[in-house]
């Protein structure tokens, strides 16, 4: 069975977490839930920095290229001169590319977040929880670390 430790206070929680890790319990066997983001927890558990920026970068590049190409190719598809501008009018199309950079970049970051944070999580939708009021450390059982903590 998994063991659960519940704290009301950030200080004691961090001390206890540090203690547990010092006692030799591997970080992977701990599940930590906090009401807000604590960079100290990340540092203690030795987590890798999030891979999310790669999603953002990928989305941004795809958006920029896609936006510019969308404007350029559709203009070439029906090449009619309007407003005395070239068919592929670079400055305005850069603008479309720029807006799509931000749009696809943000949406890709959001998608990447759902993927990395494993959301939506069906089991958590039904679970009774009050992580958002307390600091909780769940220590998974050494024998069967894969079971869902209850």
């Amino acid at each position, binding site marked *: 069975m998994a063991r659960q430790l519940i704290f009301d206070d950030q200080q004691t929680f961090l001390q206890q977490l540090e203690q547990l890790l010092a006692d030799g319990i591997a970080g992977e066997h701990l599940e930590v839930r906090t009401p807000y983001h604590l960079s100290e927890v990340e540092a203690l558990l030795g987590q890798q920095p999030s891979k999310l920026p790669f999603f953002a970068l990928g989305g941004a590049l795809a958006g920029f290229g896609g936006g510019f190409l969308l404007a350029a190719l559709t203009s070439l598809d029906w090449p009619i001169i309007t407003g*005395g*501008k070239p068919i592929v009018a670079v400055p305005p199309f850069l*603008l479309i590319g720029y807006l799509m950079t931000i749009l696809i970049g943000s949406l890709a970051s959001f998608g990447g977040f759902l993927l990395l944070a494993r959301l939506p999580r069906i089991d958590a939708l039904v679970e009774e929880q009050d992580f958002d009021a307390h600091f909780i450390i769940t220590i998974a059982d050494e024998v069967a670390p894969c079971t869902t903590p209850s």
Partner: protein
Amino acid sequence: MHDSKLSAGGCYSLLLILAATIGLIEYGGLIDQQGSLLITLTFWSAVIQGAVAVAALTALVRAQWIASLRRELLALYPLLLLLALLFALLWPQLDLFPWSDQPTIWLNRPFFMGRNLTSLLLTFLAGRQLALHSTSGAPFKDRYAVVYLLTFVLSQSLVGFDWLMSAAYPWISTMFGLYFFTEALYAGIAVAGLAMLLYFRPRQQIAPKQTARHLRDVGLLLFGFSILWAGLFFAQFLLIWYANLPEEVHFVTERLASSPERELCWLFLLGLFLTPFVTLLGSEAKGDLRFVSAVSLLVLTGLFAERLFILLPAIPHHGGALLLYNGLLFIMLLLVLHSSERLLPQASSERDDTP
């Protein structure tokens, strides 16, 4: 080491000597072509006023960012006087400007000199008040920073409209004022990046965490300003390109059609946007002294290139004099940055704020 630092008196005498030297070169018959001084001034006014403005702005919003460099930037305030001195030297050469034969209500010699000299002197006085106040140890009063920033905006707008735009009279772009005071802030941050080169290592031994964070902030600000600059540049360019009015677009086309300007255009696009944006995109680079200082230098180069781009077709110049003036001013800047501890002896009460 300690002996090489300037005292306040020494600094002012050096400024006078510098101004006298430049005056001698301009009017002593040493050069056949005037105009280099104007080009030099358009650049250095941005650098010096901008550096103090960055310090004022960060003090005003109580920002932690680059707090450890605030004094170094503020210590540049004596140079604000140098700008006024050098500008006064321009008086006999106002016929450089195309409007000098047909003065208008706004563009005529006495008013032109009068308003610009006044704004430069006001900037100096406000900057001096701010610098002295921030080292007095008393709780920081916003008033000083606000007054400086207002004079800064006034002065840089006049730089944009009077020194640069009126050289292409009657061509107008309403963005010039705002564009140039934003650029001046960009230049100020670049100066902070250069100051890091002098101060990063010694400071790192005293307060490693804080110094590293401030370096990162300088990197972040350079990155942010590269985007802001690109936005303003694009906003200006797009409208001129799109409307394609002969009386407007000639400014761009004639510059892009001839040789040094075309390359200068690439240079400032690279220096002010592409390179800072791409290099400082990663978070590692923002905390790396080599990247940040190299980008700072590049930004200053880009700003200089842009002024050349705007002025070269309109204003004659003497290459040797241009090089000499800028070299002298650059050395002066480094000297003052280096002497900041003596120029502003006491640390301001909040610059040692710990996070």
